[in-house]
């Protein structure tokens, strides 16, 4: 099978109330990603855009940014989900043999709308939506279920927030670089018990683009230093309705990771993976996903973090970018995690560079409480 490489990446700075339009954000990241790859828009033959109509406040939201993405006169298609799934679709389009170079771009401006109102519409209008469920209060139900199942406590969630906001101090693109303590997290405003303000990711604006190329093009257009290979990918989804799942169970992520590891030849993830960007939409999620990714046994995520294994200097640095807790442009976030991994593998991650990173893991989720997962293994 032909391989697919990521040959260019670009991200905006992540912040609130960005004054630029969706099209301006997309034009900025796509043109810089092309420059990063050293190719022109002429070499691109298709675009996968990632956006959500409800968040954008318009239907067929990809159409409005198609010119800015470079799709004029070409093919554009859309993934309404996390950017990791957009990259999956982009890679599949190349592997199908129909396309040779794909732009995958994502944009999001959470600060233009109402996060709780938008995420409420993800729930079934016939049942749960009218109860007022949203991203935060449903996550709170998951957090408490996880605490009860494994005997985890709130201070252990807080430690994730402390680590990731601290990591963000080394990332100039992050929105919330902060030196904080567990006490600060514990004292922050209660939103939905057991979740407090600093357990939750912020409403964020931003955009990200990746340039994917078939091996035959990648080797012609770019140097070895620029190329990062898509070595493994896996995806899996769980039940839609919260009550149909055990919210403390990570079986969908386990399946996704198993497939990605098998494809990339990963037998011992902690040993073989040098850096991971894991979808910490909420502090507790990082602990659950560390378990689902097989970095530790079920229920041992908190101990993995407490022992410093996930620290920037630890044996498997997790979220050296600062993670979603430090910048969470929905849908963009998983693509940004992949872009961060690419920078790490190229040795271009600046102050947040993990020494000698050769294999990286990027993880994205879609749906409430991590209904579906996409796991990427990227490598040199």
């Amino acid at each position, binding site marked *: 099978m032909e391989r697919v490489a990521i040959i260019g990446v670009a991200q905006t700075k992540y912040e609130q109330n960005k004054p*630029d339009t969706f099209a301006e954000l997309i034009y900025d990241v796509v043109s810089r990603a092309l420059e990063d790859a050293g190719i022109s828009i002429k070499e691109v033959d298709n675009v996968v855009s990632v956006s959500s109509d409800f968040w954008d406040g318009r239907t067929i939201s990809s159409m409005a940014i198609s010119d800015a993405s470079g799709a004029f006169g070409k093919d554009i298609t859309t993934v309404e989900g996390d950017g990791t799934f957009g990259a999956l679709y982009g890679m599949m389009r190349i592997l199908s043999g129909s396309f040779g170079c794909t732009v995958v771009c994502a944009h999001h401006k959470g600060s233009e709308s109402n996060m*709780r109102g938008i995420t409420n519409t993800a729930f079934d209008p*016939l*049942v749960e939506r*009218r*109860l007022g469920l*949203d991203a935060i209060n449903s996550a709170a139900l998951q957090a408490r279920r996880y605490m009860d199942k494994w005997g985890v406590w709130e201070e252990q969630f807080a430690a994730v927030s402390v680590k990731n906001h601290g990591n963000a101090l080394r990332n100039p693109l992050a929105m919330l670089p902060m030196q904080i303590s567990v006490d600060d997290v514990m004292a922050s405003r209660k939103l939905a018990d057991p979740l407090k303000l600093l357990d939750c990711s912020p409403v964020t604006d931003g955009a990200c683009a990746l340039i994917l190329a078939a091996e035959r093009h990648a080797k012609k257009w770019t140097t070895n230093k620029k190329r990062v290979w898509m070595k493994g990918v896996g995806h899996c989804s769980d039940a839609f309705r919260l*009550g149909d799942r055990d919210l403390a169970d990570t079986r969908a992520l386990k399946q996704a990771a198993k497939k990605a590891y098998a494809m990339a030849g990963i037998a011992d993830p902690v040993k073989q993976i040098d850096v991971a960007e894991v979808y910490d939409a909420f502090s507790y999620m990082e602990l659950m996903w560390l378990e689902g990714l097989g970095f530790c046994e079920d229920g041992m995520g908190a101990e993995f973090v407490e022992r410093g294994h996930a620290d920037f200097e630890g044996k498997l640095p997790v979220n050296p970018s600062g993670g979603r807790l430090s910048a969470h442009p929905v849908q963009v976030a998983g693509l940004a995690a992949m872009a961060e991994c690419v920078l790490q593998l190229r040795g271009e991650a600046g102050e947040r560079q993990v020494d000698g990173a050769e294999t990286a893991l990027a993880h994205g989720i879609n749906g409430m409480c991590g209904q579906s997962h996409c796991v990427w293994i990227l490598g040199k």
Partner: protein
Amino acid sequence: MSDWKDQVEVMVHHGKISVPYSWTVGSTLSKWYVLMRDRGEIWANRCPACGKVYVPPKIKCNDCYKDMADWVKLPGTGTLESYTVVHYSEPSIQPQEPPIIYGLVKMDGADTAMVHLLGEVEPEQLMVGMRVEAVMSDQREANIFDIKHFRPLAGGEA
């Protein structure tokens, strides 16, 4: 790229999208809500292949992908699997003023849990594993609020 804003005043246009919808409730949930409205009962349905009992009922079993023809009446009691006390206010989506307590209730006789409001309970009394019962609304309109809320079961460990 945002340097332009030093030279140009940043303009923001405000808008609101308001579009009505009429969602059909379908075969399975219509039956569930009618039983709730007319008899004040909570029913579930059961997979003919694996026997898994779902509430709210589903059109097909997640595991077996089979039609769910068998219906069973539930006693309306259950065990609290998780809960949260919501402190923020979002009037456009919330059914009542905060604080609002939500519970994930594993219903007796069913294999799945239901999310609903918890009432007649103080936040300090909440505990995972607590026994609860459904309180039906007096005025029922065949929707999720035909269950008013769940409350602690009188007598505790019943």
